[in-house]
Each structure stands twice: as structure tokens, then as C-alpha cells.
């Protein structure tokens, strides 16, 4: 074979290699080296063709063809460039018109209103792999939010498998997905996390995130509570404080001594493991605070007395004496309870969905009072239970088995109470909320890394403090329409559609063809 024939073949292959290198880079291998290698080899083979055929290419006829080819390539590239630019513009400034009767592919007016009211930029980071079944749906949802408020709503998708740092940051396990909604810019921006959200959840998250910015969280002190700033070598709540700041709250210590009331800017008050009695004026201040629609998180411990028994009883919560123990659901010690027995409560729903086990060492349990002591209008609910095998050990230092006279059965370890306070004088919020947790040590820095407990605390905090007006969006749907055809009607329709209709068309075609053929 002559050299010019070989280089002609080389030239053809070279062109193919050159043109296919972007596919290698973006679709098949993803290797820059491989794609670059193909492009270079292709260009070299093409060059070999041009060099060996330069005389042929220089002829008059070929020059004319070459000029046509060059002008065609230039025109084509020019038009292609213009069309690409137009498409980029259309993609970025896309306009959409939802022509469905119920506007089922549009954002609800409440969402549009929420987006319009955003004061700081909201950013959504979806840690969802591209192959996930809900990816397209989520992307479409986020796109609608972005189109409705491009200045304040932004989103990005990240494949958690490719970003181990983010996976570690949000403690995602293999196969898990998460959507992080942040307010403001930067790593320290307050944020909240959601499982794959629908419009209602996403809008509520935006509302809540906006609302937390103004909320002060007061940690009471003066009775041996765990401090926000621990002394060197001591236990404290540094990690909890950081988490609260990350989520947009403003945690501060508060001593009620000498005060007549809890400050008016309190979004939430936390009692984190008090070990000494609160004085009567302090209890009165707390009573007034809840009476005006305040929100309180109460964490207690075994072997402590804080003098808040009667105050809690007003809200249907009575702290049991002794320590909760469980012979079966524990982590090797009957006083270290492990539980996945959740009540039907908003606080524990996410824990239940993610299959978490909560661990409470030396916890106290509660008896819920539904009549008698409690104030009118109070609703009290269990949030977390022990297993049905548990008991309250009244002498934990002496005995690790149930004895007669000790409370037995499924114990309430976390409880919540609420009371309508719309009619209250000096009302703070429409509803008072209280969450009582039978263990305070889960708030401490060394224990804060335990994910299930941390989620329990933060969910309780969210439930108690975020009394912003949540929106309830009805999932949009088309109007119901019906079709009732009898078997006879259906048979007729089937015959006309699949038999008579196509055969008639074929008959017309045959008639036309035959008549033309016979002409």
C-alpha cells in the first residue's frame, strides 16, 4: 500500500480521534490524560495527512472546495456559537408558564410570600447522589424556588460519595442523603438539615431559619447547672453552645436571682441539671414566664433535688424518685438505658425515621399527670419511653434488680407539655411549651458527639422554641375526573380504534397507490 493511502486512512482516524476526545473526557472514561492523548494523537494523524497530501490540497479544484469547506465551517461554527449563546441565555433567564388548571407545577402563594420575606440569602446544599430516584424531583423543586427568588435562594447538589469531608461534617452514612438549608454565607452560617423535603418542609425550614436569628436561649445558672463556659478541666456545654450559634440562636447565661421576671427577649429557657433548690421568687418568675407563653427545656439528673416539683406538676409532669433501670434494653449496665421506644411526637419522628437508638445513663423517669394538679388547658404527652421491662430503682447503690414497691413497666423518660396562652396578660407566645428530659449529662461536651442523643436534644429545642407559624400546603393535584364505560362501549371503542381506524387509513393508501399505478 502506498504511503499516501496509509496517511489518508490515518487522517480519517485522526479526525475521529480528535472529534471523539470530548466524549472520552465527559462521558466514557472521565480521564483527562486519556482524552488529551486521543486529541494529540488525532491531531498528529491529521497533520500527517495534510503534509503528505499538500500538493493535492493545493490544486485549483481542491482550493475551491477548500474555500467552500472553510466558509461552511466558519458559518456553521458562527451560527452554532450564536445558538449556544441563545440557549445559555434561555437557560439562565428561563421563563415558565404553568398552564395546568390547579397550577400544580407552581409554588404555593405562601412559599412565594416566604421567599419574598427572606432578609438574608438562603442556600440549599443537597447531599444526594445523581443516581438517586428523587434527584430530578428535588432539582425541579429547588429550581422553582430559585426562579421565584434568584437573589435570595440558591442551591447546589453534591454527590456525598465524592465529598468525604461533607459526608463527615454532616455525619452521613453510606447511602444516606441530606438537604442542608443555610441562612447567610460561609461555613459558620446558621443551618438546618432535612431529609429529602417536599415544598412544605422546605418552606417551613426557611421560615424557621429566619425566625431563629432573633431568639435568645437563656441557660439558667446559680443552682449547680452545667455551665456554658466550663472551668479548665471541668464539664460544660461548649459544644451545645456552638451548635446553637451555628443554628442561629443566641445562647446566654441567666441568673434569676433578684429578677422578677425572665427577660422579654427570651426565646427559650434551659435548665441544664440543677443540683440545688430554686428559691420561691425564682420559681414564681418561671411560673409567670410559662404562664405568658414561655418555652422551657428542663433537664434533670438522678439524686438531685431542685425544688421545681410543684412547678412541673402544674404542667402535668412529676419527676419519679430513683433511677430508671432496664434489664434488657441497656448497654451492658441496667442503669444505662438504650431506647427506640418513641411516642407519636414531632420531636422523635426524625429519630424514628432514621432508626436511631437513644442512650440515657442514670436517667430519671416521669409520671404524667393528666388531671388534678395540672393547670387548665395543659396537654402533656410522652416523647420517649423505656422498654416495657424497665423499673424505677429506688436504691441504685445497693440493688440492681426490681424490688417490691418499685414502679415497673414502660417508663416515660422524656415528656412534653403545652398550654394555650393566647388569653394571657403580657403574652409572649400563643402557646407555652415545656420539654422535660430525665438526664442532663447528655448535654455535656464529651457526650455531645453521640448523634442520636444530640438529635433528641436539638429536636426538643426546635419543637419548644420554634413556634413560628408553620405553613401547611395542600399537595396540589388535578381535579378528579372519571370515566365509566360499559363493557359493550369499551368493546366498540377498541374495535373502532385499533381495527377500523388504522385499516381505513391503509385502505385509502392502497386505493391511491393502485389508482396511480394503473394510470
Amino acid at each position: 500500500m502506498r504511503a499516501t493511502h496509509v496517511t489518508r486512512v490515518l487522517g480519517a482516524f485522526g479526525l475521529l480521534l480528535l472529534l471523539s476526545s470530548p466524549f472520552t473526557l465527559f462521558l466514557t472514561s472521565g480521564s483527562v490524560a486519556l482524552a488529551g492523548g486521543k486529541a494529540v494523537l488525532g491531531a498528529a494523524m491529521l497533520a500527517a495527512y495534510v503534509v503528505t497530501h499538500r500538493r493535492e490540497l493545493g490544486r485549483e479544484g481542491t482550493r475551491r472546495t477548500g474555500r467552500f469547506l472553510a466558509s461552511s465551517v466558519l458559518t456553521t461554527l458562527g451560527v452554532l456559537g450564536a445558538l449556544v449563546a441563545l440557549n445559555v441565555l434561555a437557560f439562565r433567564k428561563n421563563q415558565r408558564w404553568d398552564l395546568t388548571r390547579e397550577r400544580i407545577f407552581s409554588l404555593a402563594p405562601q412559599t412565594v410570600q416566604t421567599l419574598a420575606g427572606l432578609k438574608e440569602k438562603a442556600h440549599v446544599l443537597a447531599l444526594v447522589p445523581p443516581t438517586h430516584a428523587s434527584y430530578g424531583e428535588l432539582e425541579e423543586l429547588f429550581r422553582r424556588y430559585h426562579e421565584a427568588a434568584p437573589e435570595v435562594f440558591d442551591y447546589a447538589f453534591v454527590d456525598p460519595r465524592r465529598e468525604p469531608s461533607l459526608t463527615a461534617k454532616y455525619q452521613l452514612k453510606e447511602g444516606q442523603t441530606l438537604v442542608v438549608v443555610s441562612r447567610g454565607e460561609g461555613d459558620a452560617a446558621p443551618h438546618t438539615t432535612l431529609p429529602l423535603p417536599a415544598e412544605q418542609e422546605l418552606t417551613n425550614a426557611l421560615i424557621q431559619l429566619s425566625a431563629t436569628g432573633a431568639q435568645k436561649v437563656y441557660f439558667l445558672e446559680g443552682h449547680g447547672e452545667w455551665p456554658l463556659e466550663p472551668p479548665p478541666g471541668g464539664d460544660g456545654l461548649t459544644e451545645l453552645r456552638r451548635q446553637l450559634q451555628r443554628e442561629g440562636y443566641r445562647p446566654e447565661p441567666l441568673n434569676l436571682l433578684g429578677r422578677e421576671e425572665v427577660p422579654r427577649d427570651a426565646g427559650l429557657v434551659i435548665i441544664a441539671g440543677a443540683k440545688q433548690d430554686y428559691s420561691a421568687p425564682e420559681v414564681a418568675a418561671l411560673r409567670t414566664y410559662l404562664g405568658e407563653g414561655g418555652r422551657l427545656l428542663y433537664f434533670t439528673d438522678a439524686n438531685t433535688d431542685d425544688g421545681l416539683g410543684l412547678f412541673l406538676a402544674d404542667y402535668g409532669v412529676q419527676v419519679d424518685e430513683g433511677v430508671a433501670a432496664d434489664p434488657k434494653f441497656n448497654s451492658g449496665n441496667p442503669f444505662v438505658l438504650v431506647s427506640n421506644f418513641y411516642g407519636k411526637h414531632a420531636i422523635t419522628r426524625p429519630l424514628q425515621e432514621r432508626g436511631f437508638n437513644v442512650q440515657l445513663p442514670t436517667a430519671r423517669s416521669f409520671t404524667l399527670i393528666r388531671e388534678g394538679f395540672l393547670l387548665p388547658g395543659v396537654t402533656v404527652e410522652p416523647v420517649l419511653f423505656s422498654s416495657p421491662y424497665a423499673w424505677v430503682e429506688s436504691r441504685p447503690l445497693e440493688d440492681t434488680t426490681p424490688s417490691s414497691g418499685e414502679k415497673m413497666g414502660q417508663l416515660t423518660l422524656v415528656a412534653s407539655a403545652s398550654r394555650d396562652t393566647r388569653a394571657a396578660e403580657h403574652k409572649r407566645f400563643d402557646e407555652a411549651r415545656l420539654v422535660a428530659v430525665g438526664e442532663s449529662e447528655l448535654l455535656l461536651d464529651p457526650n455531645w458527639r453521640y448523634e442520636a442523643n444530640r438529635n433528641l436534644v436539638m429536636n426538643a429545642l426546635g419543637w419548644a422554641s420554634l413556634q413560628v407559624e408553620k405553613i401547611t400546603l395542600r399537595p396540589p393535584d388535578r381535579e378528579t375526573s372519571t370515566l365509566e364505560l360499559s363493557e359493550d362501549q369499551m368493546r366498540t371503542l377498541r374495535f373502532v380504534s385499533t381495527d377500523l381506524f388504522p385499516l381505513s387509513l391503509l385502505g385509502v393508501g392502497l386505493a391511491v397507490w393502485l389508482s396511480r399505478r394503473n394510470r
Partner: protein
Amino acid sequence: MRTALAIARKELAVAFTTPWAYAAITAMAALSSFFFVSLLEQFQQVQSLAREHGWSRLPPDSVVYRNLTDGVVVQLWGVVLIITLFVAPFLSMRLFAEEKRQKTFALLLTTPVRPVDIVLGKYLGGLGLIFVTLGLTLVFPVVLSVVGSGPSGSALEWPTVLLGYGAVLLWGATCMAVGLFISALTESQVLAAFLTFTVLLPWMLLRGVAQSTAEPLRSFLSYLSFDTQLQGMIQGVLEAQALVFFASVILFSLLLTHRAVEAQRYA
């Protein structure tokens, strides 16, 4: 433009006197009828189950069968898009290839007709043919509006139905433009049909490829996918970007066809 229209009229006259066009039209009618009846039967079955057990006890994806537009028409348009993918290459294959085979194309080039008129004329002819073929499918929603019923009177959401039909026509117009260009490259009709199908099918399925890639390539491929651009329209959402995208593909295909016709002068 008058020349282009004259060529288009001639193309249509020729097409409707050949068995190919009728075969394609019949195939479209038969397949879409078959799917229409199947969808209708399925709709009736799910509605009957819902009447018996209630919607809440049916699988969540049954919700589309609450409504005739969603349960039958939107799905029918999805099927028609796929059938068009198979039928359009048969309608476009002969536009240039047949003239080349019969050696009348060289004759056409010697006449005082501009290549742009030839391209536009052929395209408009092809467009007429595909629109007639797809026009038959509009009979199904009409039948549904007669036999179905809804609380507000109309069984169907006509804006959604018509937008979906518009998407089908837009898709047909795009298939014809791509098919026209490929037909201009060869004198073999079979090869033209096969190549057109080979180009359109992966392009249609690009969304599947996009799903396994990461951003920003995913968004890029999704945008290029015919399927992604058409999905919103058949469900009732009109997007400016979809119109721009299809107009771009049609325009670019016609430009390439024009250059291919011009190139015959230099061959």
C-alpha cells in the same frame, strides 16, 4: 418563499401518492390506538379499584389515575413521542435521498432555484407530512372529552392537552429537520432512515446518561436531552428554554442541510 411553498406542495402531493406515507400514517394510527385503548383500560381498572377500596389503599403512584388528563392523555403523548421517533425517519428518508437515487437532484440544482428554497420547500413538505401523521392522534382526547366527565364539566384539562400536543408537533418538526439533513447526505433511503433513527434515539435517551453523571455535566446533558425538554410540556408547563432549544436544533439542522445541498455543486 413562493418557490419554497411550491416545492413543499409538490413534496406533499408526491408523498400522498406513495405507499410509504400511508404505511407510516397507518403505523402511527395503529400503534397509538393500541396504546390509547390499553391506557384507557388501565385507567378504568384503577378507578374501579379506587371506588372499591379508596385511593388511600392504592399504591402512591396510582394518583395519576385520578384524572383523565394525567392518567391517559399525558401518558399517551409520552408514547406518541416514542412512536414518532420510529415513524419520522421513514417519512424524512426520501426527501433528498429519493431525488438523488433517481438522479433528479442534479437536475434540480441546475434550475434557477436557490438552495435555501429547496431546503425550506423540502422541510415544509416533510413538516406537512408529519403534522398530518401526528394530527390523527388528536382524535383520542376528543373521544375522551365526549365519554369522560369531571366535577367542573370538562373531563380533560384542555390547556394541558393542547400544550402536550404542541410538544408532540415540536418533536415531529425536530425529527423531520434532523432527518432532512441526513437524507441530504446519502442516496440510500434505508441508510438515511437508519442514520436518522441512530442519531435521534441516543439524543432522546441522553437524560438516562445524565443521571449517572455529576454536576455540572448533569445539567448540561439534561438540557440537551429531548426527553427532558419535552416532559414539562406534555404535563402542562411551557418553558421558554424548551422553545429556544428546539428552535435551535431545527435551525441548525436546516443550516447543515443547506450547506450539504450547496456542497453538491462542488462535488
